[in-house]
């Protein structure tokens, strides 16, 4: 047990703040682990705000107008969407767990550009602050939906420009993090860490990082054009001035579809780590899982038009986008099959991280299959712009990426904080969340099939039942979230000390003490085999 004995002799990264003291030892740190924790805390904060707004929307929808006005509702779904997408789920796993574990997984001491790394967090937090500011400044919170479709986004007097500037800045944080990761993976792998010995989490971050670098500039340009148009009336998108609103949609989705893969790929990476450890078995089809990440990232660029099947775009382009959309579903399916096959002949222990992965597979399968439904051209004419879409993307981003995030949170919590959480409470929270989630969002599929449009403050009587059901689900889910976070926050202060390797993992982070020391490895490790070797 060499790892165990190190704990006593070495100060952990939590104690070793570097040049500064207190808060400053965090916000001026260049330690990738501390930066990971900074992101984790900020992401948790934004997520909580987003969830509270979500609950308020659901509250309105049991009795429209009773608690919340029309104008407020329109801002609520806009701000909810902006926060959950740009401040929670896109930075989500890469910025928190990625920052913390990418160098360790590679056997490195830090990322390639540590200062750029903390600068990225500053950008992120300033952008986030602008978004929050846009809610409170006079002019009113943005009310366009998170998609900012023109020309409404040009004409509204609400604080759209401010929120867009915030997202613009957050976008740069994302690009820089991507750059940092790609460089680190290329340059800082420990001796013997060949490409095919890298943990699959790293493969997924690698594919994600390229998407962040290549796609995010498109968003930046789109938002810049929008801000210029709002400020100077230039006329890129405003038809009264010869602009084209459909061009805005193309530009917006050219980023925002690949962004869906920025959200989901890292979660897939987390799941690929957890299945082998809890089955005590090598991953089934390592190369298939690794290459499918790259495949998804690449084909993900070519399908943005499936958000525009009813936009007035030409029929032939609709057909082509539909075809590619169907094909991009296949690599995700391949991953699911490989994860499941990993358990075959394994020795499976169902602890909380694995439970979250199982929920991930189930919810993400529903997301993917409903994705096929709305990718079908004729069905899209029926379901686009309805609650079916709202159900679908919550299954993808929350059921998929969100539950993947929670899986990683439970898996790595002992390593990051050196404490164990209460496993029983974690399982109870999981069950409540799983049930609440499905009630909340499955009823949205039913609403969509009934024809209920999204972004509606009020609705006709035939939709009432399912709306009430959905709201009740939101309360159950919220209760589960409270238990989960309560359990983890309690563990931060009261949890038992975590051993170096509580789950019996075989990647490099588990050779370090919990929590790891400032420099990660005393001596650069030499890698002699694949990432998932169990005796």
């Amino acid at each position, binding site marked *: 047990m060499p790892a165990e004995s190190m704990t006593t002799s070495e100060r952990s990264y939590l104690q070793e703040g570097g040049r500064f003291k207190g808060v400053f030892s965090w916000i001026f740190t260049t330690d990738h682990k501390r930066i990971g924790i900074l992101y984790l805390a900020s992401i948790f904060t934004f997520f909580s705000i987003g969830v509270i707004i979500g609950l308020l929307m659901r509250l309105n929808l049991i009795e429209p107008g009773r608690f919340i006005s029309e104008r407020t509702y329109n801002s609520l779904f806009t701000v909810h969407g902006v926060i959950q997408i740009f401040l929670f789920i896109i930075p989500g796993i890469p910025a928190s767990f990625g920052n913390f574990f990418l160098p360790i997984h590679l056997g490195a001491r830090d990322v390639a550009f540590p200062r750029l790394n903390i600068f990225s967090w500053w950008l992120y937090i300033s952008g986030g602050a602008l978004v929050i500011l846009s809610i409170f400044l006079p002019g009113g919170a943005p009310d366009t939906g998170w998609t900012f479709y023109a020309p409404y986004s040009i004409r509204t007097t609400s604080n759209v420009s401010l929120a867009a500037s915030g997202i613009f800045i957050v976008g740069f944080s994302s690009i820089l993090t991507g750059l940092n990761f790609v460089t680190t993976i290329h340059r800082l792998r420990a001796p013997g860490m060949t490409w095919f010995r890298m943990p699959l989490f790293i493969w997924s971050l690698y594919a994600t990082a390229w998407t962040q670098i290549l796609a995010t500039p498109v968003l930046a340009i789109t938002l810049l054009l929008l801000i210029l148009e709002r400020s100077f009336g230039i006329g890129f998108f405003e*038809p009264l001035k010869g602009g084209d*609103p459909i061009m805005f949609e193309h530009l917006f989705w050219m980023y925002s579809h690949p962004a869906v893969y920025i959200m989901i790929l890292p979660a897939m990476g987390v799941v690929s780590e957890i299945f082998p450890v809890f089955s005590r078995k090598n991953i089934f089809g390592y190369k298939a899982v690794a290459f499918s990440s790259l495949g998804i990232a690449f084909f993900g660029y070519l399908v943005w038009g499936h958000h525009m099947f009813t936009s007035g775009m030409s029929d032939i382009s609709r057909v082509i986008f539909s075809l590619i959309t169907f094909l991009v579903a296949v690599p995700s*399916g391949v991953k699911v099959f490989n994860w499941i096959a990993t358990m075959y002949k394994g020795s499976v222990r169902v602890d909380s991280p694995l439970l979250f992965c199982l929920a991930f597979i189930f919810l993400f*399968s529903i997301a993917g299959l409903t994705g096929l439904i709305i990718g*079908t051209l004729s069905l899209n004419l029926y379901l686009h712009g309805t609650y079916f879409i709202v159900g679908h993307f919550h299954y993808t981003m929350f059921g998929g990426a969100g539950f993947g995030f929670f899986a990683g949170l439970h898996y790595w919590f002992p390593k990051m904080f050196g404490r164990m959480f209460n496993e029983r409470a974690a399982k109870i929270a999981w069950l409540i969340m799983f049930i609440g989630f499905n009630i909340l969002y499955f009823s949205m599929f039913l609403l969509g099939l009934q*024809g209920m*449009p999204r972004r509606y403050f009020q609705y006709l009587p035939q939709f009432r039942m399912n709306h009430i059901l959905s709201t009740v689900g939101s309360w159950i889910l919220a209760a589960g979230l409270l238990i989960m976070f309560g359990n983890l926050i309690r563990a931060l202060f009261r949890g038992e000390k975590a051993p170096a390797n509580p789950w019996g993992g075989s990647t490099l982070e588990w050779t370090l003490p919990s929590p790891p020391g400032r420099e990660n490895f005393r001596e650069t490790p030499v890698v002699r085999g694949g990432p998932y070797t*169990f005796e």
Partner: protein
Amino acid sequence: MFIPEASNSARYVDAAFLVIVGISVALLAGVTSVMLFLIFRYKRRRGTKAEQVEGGTALEIIWTVIPVVLVLVMFVIGERSFRLIRSAPREIMTIRVDARQWSWMFGYDNGRQSDQLRVPLGKPVKLRLSSRDVLHSFYVPAFRIKEDCVPGMETYLWFTPQQQGSFDIFCTEYCGLGHSGMLAKVVVMPEKEFDEWYAGAGAKGNRGLQLLLEKGCLGCHTTDGTLKVGPTFKGIYGRTVTVVTSGKERTITVDGDYLKRSVLDPGADIVKGFPPVMPKIPVTPEELDAIEDYLEHLR
């Protein structure tokens, strides 16, 4: 299924839906049950050890090729039905759909205008969609059709109504404050009844009401006392209201002058509790008189 199948396209869409949902449910059930089976079968027990299996090329190929075939089947089903839904027959009646914040207006070839889409049963109809301001989307769930209304561009939809009755029209592209109130109805009538209505003497109707409709006033105001984005017109004349004039509150009684000023300069007096969103809508003095006259008598 969940809602009436009231047009030709509804049949195609629902048939495609059944096939694709069928495949999807089978896949989901398969994945979930294999997953659960493996968890129980290979549960960690004392004395048992995992057997290392690295993967299998044959399996990888199988579970890549089968999904590819399945999704291609789905694609073809969707594409076929899409073609049918999009190709309008030559002989067809066309109706203009004019969307604006936050109302629909339907214009017929003989100049007739209506806030409800009236169509004859069993006759194909083509809609030419356009918008006067921002994006909207024309959606009739019972017909399973939808298309955006884009300012500066014309888009289209067509359908053959196959069930008599009245069906909801929704706007499904977010368009600002009153988006969720941007509703209307398709009324499918027997052909004879439709013809009578189409040619009918009521075609002109009340000039004031016709203007409220054409100018889009009824997108936000109602004539039956219900509340939309703005105050209702019902009983407006002589009503006592509190308005905010350049930041100050005052109480006034609605008269002809007030009504006219509200149309010509909507920002001047804002009725307390309502958002200041009314646009300046161009009207001629003669039109304004007709509107005022109509409102004065709307009890």
